[in-house]
């Protein structure tokens, strides 16, 4: 059974997501003692040579790029199941880093066919309690899906779920109108589409667990940090300083980060950090 991480990355006019995926792949290669296979799914036919060494496979997005006219680039997220070259896959958002080894998670995650994060954490390692960006989830009693870190195995049942996710992604306006109240998003939302599919199929117990430990990740959106919102802006690096060590481990606000870290603010990742990560990967 092959295991690996899959990152879907498509550049936008504002952000070089391939660069972010490259940094994530480097951090996985340097921190994971067990599974450290990383594949990149992208429409970028010319991924820079300097990035290629960090990926085991570079996969062209199948069935064309459905996000070619979009700025948010999430229209291809239903294809994970079909793009992954692995029997067991962890899906990651590109704007993440791995500060610590989580290899031991794989054997735990494989106890289920699919396991999605529903309890992300703050940089202080508290479970996020804010529902600021989750009105639709609360109002429609949807499972609290965060696809930024999601495990699945290729099985018949999981394939069935992804078939429905395909249908919802490609008919999202009808589904959102039919199944969600007026809090429904006005654009396609990957997390909402996944949550809706899970709810329609009644797979909540199959996709989540009571465990508060894993799967999880640190979600750095400022207003999710269980801190008085009036003291913050969306640009969290202005408020919480980073100490990035030569070993690729780092502290935020002097809290050591141990979970996969979803930094969200793209400018946080500096070229110096990438240079540090490169020096830690033996190519």
């Amino acid at each position, binding site marked *: 059974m092959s295991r690996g991480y899959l990152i879907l990355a498509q550049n936008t006019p504002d952000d070089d997501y391939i660069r972010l995926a490259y940094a994530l792949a480097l951090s996985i290669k340097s921190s994971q003692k067990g599974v450290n296979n990383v594949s990149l799914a992208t429409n970028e036919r010319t991924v820079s040579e300097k990035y290629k060494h960090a990926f085991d496979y570079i996969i062209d997005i199948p069935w064309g790029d459905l996000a070619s006219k979009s700025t948010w680039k999430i229209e291809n997220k239903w294809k994970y199941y079909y793009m992954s070259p692995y029997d067991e896959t962890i899906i990651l958002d590109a704007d993440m880093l791995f500060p610590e080894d989580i290899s031991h998670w794989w054997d735990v995650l494989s106890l289920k066919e699919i396991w999605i994060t529903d309890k992300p954490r703050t940089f*202080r*390692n508290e479970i996020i309690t804010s529902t600021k960006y989750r009105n639709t989830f609360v109002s429609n009693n949807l499972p609290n899906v965060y696809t930024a870190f999601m495990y699945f195995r290729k099985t018949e049942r999981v394939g069935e779920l992804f078939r429905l996710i395909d249908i919802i992604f490609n008919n999202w306006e009808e589904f959102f109108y039919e199944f969600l109240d007026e809090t429904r998003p006005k654009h396609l939302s990957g997390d909402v589409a996944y949550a809706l599919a899970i709810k329609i199929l009644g797979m909540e117990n199959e996709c989540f667990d009571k465990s508060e430990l894993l799967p999880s990740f640190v979600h750095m959106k400022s207003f999710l*940090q269980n*801190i008085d919102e009036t*003291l913050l802006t969306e640009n969290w690096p202005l408020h*919480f300083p980073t100490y990035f060590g030569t070993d690729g481990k780092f502290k935020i606000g*002097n*809290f*050591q*980060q141990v979970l996969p870290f979803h930094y969200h603010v793209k400018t946080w990742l500096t070229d110096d950090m990438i240079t540090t990560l490169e020096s830690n990967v033996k190519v």
Partner: protein
Amino acid sequence: MTRGVLMYAHNNSEIDYLKIACANALMVKKNLDVGITLVTDSKTLQWGEDSLSAPFINSCFDNVIEVDKNKVFINNRIFSDTSYTNKILPFYNCNHWQAYALSPYDETLFIDCDYLIMSSALARCWDSGNDIMVNRTIYSPIDDAPPYSKLIDNSGIPLYWATVVYFKKSLIAENLFYVVRHVEENYEYYKNLYCFSSGMFRNDYAMSIAVHTLNGYNNTLPVIRELPISGLLMSWDKDDIQNVNSINDITIYAEKKDKTGEYILSRIKNTDIHIMNKWAISRVTGRLIELYGDDTCLEDI
């Protein structure tokens, strides 16, 4: 295994910490029945011997350890006596890191002298298997709200209260106090690093930083546990003591939250309590000594 309580008392020009410590030592004897060691300085001790008598002090404590004060250390603090009066006075607290080395016990309960021992709850610490225990959980006498904790800054680390620290002579406890010393000696640096605004040196902050450091700079699997109590009961300096009713039974005026000058009468029985209003506690130390002291020791005053 030897067990005991350690307290510090360094008087300033107005607050007789030694007398408070004597009263609390008698309360410790009544409720915990263990040895008590006092750490103090020569001037405080001289004042105590003149005002209370040396035999009385010796009857309160099993050991009295005199330490030299660091004359360079200046730490002024606002001491409030309810919301209506306050005074800025020196607060000498820079030597608490010495507690580890000074304690003559294998297991020590290191308590502030204003943490009044009115129960045997802390006896659960003995032989608990933990090398250090210190609380972040506190609760208030004014409402039924569940115990809670604070942060040293809005986005900062958890605030641990150095008011009560249990430690066993062990490497990790030695390291903890070593870090407390390091923070005290580099306080400006840590103040900037952890973004706390207080200019005054606080052992609570130094202890919080030490605990955070020894817990690996995160909250994942804390190696330093809390005390086996539901939290530290806090009477703030806006409160006052209404009466000492009898043994392990006091009534306080607890100021309502955000309502200056409005109080709730709160009766505290068989529960340890941290009295922040030093004037309030000073007003009742005589009564506490009278209640908790036996005839022999009272004859010495």
